[in-house]
């Protein structure tokens, strides 16, 4: 009797979760199917009508997208922004994280508390002053400007994460390396970075996705020649509906990279997001 009831309860749980799963999948399926239909078909009926008429589906929108100079340019801009940002954040934060964890310098504790305090500072507060500063430096509207801004606002979390990870390293290991006469630089390269690889990977993936998906920062700091995909697509959203044959495949192009990264590095990704949630 009890087993029957438990079986029934489990059936209900399964059904409920299947429904939730379908609800989660539907909007994404809608975007993908819409990206495969012509604008005329989309104007006539919803994407689900294509399920009954698979003839509507083709990759024409995507081949048109590949010939769309604006989209392609902005796609490469996205790469040129997110890859250097990721490398710089990881490098600068690894150096600082190691110093905060194991090296001795004046005001080490208060400075690190400052980093912890900066964790939650909203990006918004930096927009206006940094825009002025970059205007004077000639960085406004350029990719290096966007990168620098992202690096700065990615650093508090990155330094926090890496300092905490490095601090867990056994003290004996470092002391042994110092006894052997290794310089701090050699210890950092040969010992700290390899040991810290899991944390560095999580950080890199988190940072990459964060910057890849950013729109706000680039909306202000990039101009039309340096803008990433998100801004390019955003600028077309006013005509929503009539240009769905550009927006839908464009959005799909912009999300497929992070989703592939997500599935390829699930574990690191989840850890990175979890750790980064304090932001």
């Amino acid at each position, binding site marked *: 009797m009890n087993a029957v009831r438990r079986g029934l309860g489990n059936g209900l749980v399964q059904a409920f979760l299947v429904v939730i799963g379908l609800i989660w999948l539907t909007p994404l399926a809608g975007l993908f199917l819409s990206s495969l239909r012509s604008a005329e078909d989309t104007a006539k009926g919803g994407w689900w009508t294509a399920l009954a008429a698979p003839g509507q589906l083709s990759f024409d929108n995507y081949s048109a997208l590949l010939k769309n100079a604006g989209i392609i340019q902005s796609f490469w801009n996205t790469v040129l922004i997110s890859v250097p940002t990721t490398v710089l954040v990881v490098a600068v934060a690894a150096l600082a994280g190691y*110093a905060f964890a194991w090296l001795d310098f004046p005001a080490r504790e208060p400075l690190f508390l400052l980093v912890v305090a*900066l964790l939650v500072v*909203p990006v918004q507060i930096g927009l206006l002053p940094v825009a002025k500063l970059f205007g004077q430096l000639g960085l406004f509207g350029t990719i290096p400007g966007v990168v620098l801004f992202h690096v700065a606002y990615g650093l508090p979390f990155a330094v926090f994460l890496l300092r905490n990870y490095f601090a867990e390293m056994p003290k004996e290991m470092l002391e042994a390396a110092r006894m052997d006469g290794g310089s701090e630089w050699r210890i950092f390269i040969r010992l700290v970075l390899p040991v810290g690889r899991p944390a560095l990977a999580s950080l890199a993936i988190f940072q990459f996705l964060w910057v890849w998906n950013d729109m706000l920062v680039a909306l202000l700091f990039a101009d039309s020649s340096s803008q990433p995909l998100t801004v390019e697509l955003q600028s077309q*959203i006013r005509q929503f509906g009539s240009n769905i044959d550009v927006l839908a495949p464009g959005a799909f192009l912009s*999300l497929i990279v992070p989703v592939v990264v997500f599935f390829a590095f699930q574990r690191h990704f989840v850890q990175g997001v979890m750790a980064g949630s304090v932001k």
Partner: protein
Amino acid sequence: MTATTLAKEAGSAPVASAGRARRTRRRGRIIAVLFVLPALLLLGALVVYPVVFSVGRSFFDASGTRFVGGDNYTEMFRDPATLKAIRNTTIWVVVAPALLTGLGLILAVLVEKVRWATAFKLLLFMPMAVSFLAAGIIFRLAYDEDPDKGVLNAAVVSVHDAFAGTSSYPTARAREGQGLIHGADGSYRTGTGVSPGDSVTLGLVGVLPKDLPAGAGPAYAAAGRSAAPDEVRGVVYLDFTPGGGGRQGEVDRRESGLPEMKVEAVRDGRTVASTTTASDGSFRFPGLASGAYTVELPESNFAPPYQGVSWLGRTLVTPAIIGAYLWIWTGFAMVLIGAGLSTLPRDALEAARMDGANEWQIFRRITVPLLAPVLTVVFVTLVINVMKVFDLVYIIAPGPVQEDATVLATQMWLVSFGGGNNQGLGSALGVLLLLLVIPAMVFNVRRFRRSQR
């Protein structure tokens, strides 16, 4: 640490190495400073300095030339658009984190009971990898008001129609002066008293031949049949001959019947019989007592089709965007709470089960209290993120509804850069955002200091 090691070494050869130790120590410090310098410079120039600058700038007017004291801050609570933003951000903070934490908790508990838990978690977590822009486009599509385009309204309309039924002839109407009276509620009825034994023809226009239901047949034959003494017969037809040539008010040979029309026989204001027309538009009310009747086509035949919900209209736009936000963040809440769940002591749960507690009691009395710290962390994290929500609102709210959906972050953007061009007020809004996250800042610093002891 370097210092202590070196001091121990120095103990063995006190005199000669004291100076060397100090030199080494100074060199170590210089190296350490070189390690942290890039980070500190970037943080100082691009994070700390802007905070100070913004605080200062918020006390100056739009052009930045005149000191106005706290005027920008009082303006914030007077300007209707900014007030709206504050109100909407409050709605976000009150609704979204609580919903997400609750949903995440329920799903985290339930998903442990199925074998495909990992796949489910991956699916729900995946939207975290998707940009707000892409999510915005996804939900602009899903929320489209036209039920033929937006999947959500398509679902709402089909559920509505399944329960309330659809009208077949929203555009149909009767010609003036052809014997049908248009009721105030949209119905049509015969004017004169109809008695058993009578046949009536009810002619309508305004239906395009292509909109006729499949299987609609000519009404001519049915119109010719005469009624038995105790029944009323009739036909509802489209008084229009394709290609022209028909006479108005008469059933011509090629004119079509209107099937599935609801017809009622009314006597003294009470409906005594009702039926639906056949494929040739014919109907009959058999077994009527003698007397005067009215034949009526109720308004449900002509009601305009149900169009669903205006998701991105003024009233629902904020809840609709919160819905999109749930799609993105539920997986996060679920996975974080799930991680907390897996650390719960199994013995406590098993003991409760042995004592005969049911699943609900275990959930309510053991799981939730033990999870309280994790739930707090999830909740606080979500509050911080919700306060800064920008992209999703900016993308999903259509142009004319932007001002109804506006939140602090979008308002700050609009005021500073998007046409408002009031950088004084914009800075004040930025400072307000910062003030709102200061409790979280204090929380983080305290938690860190405690963990160091």
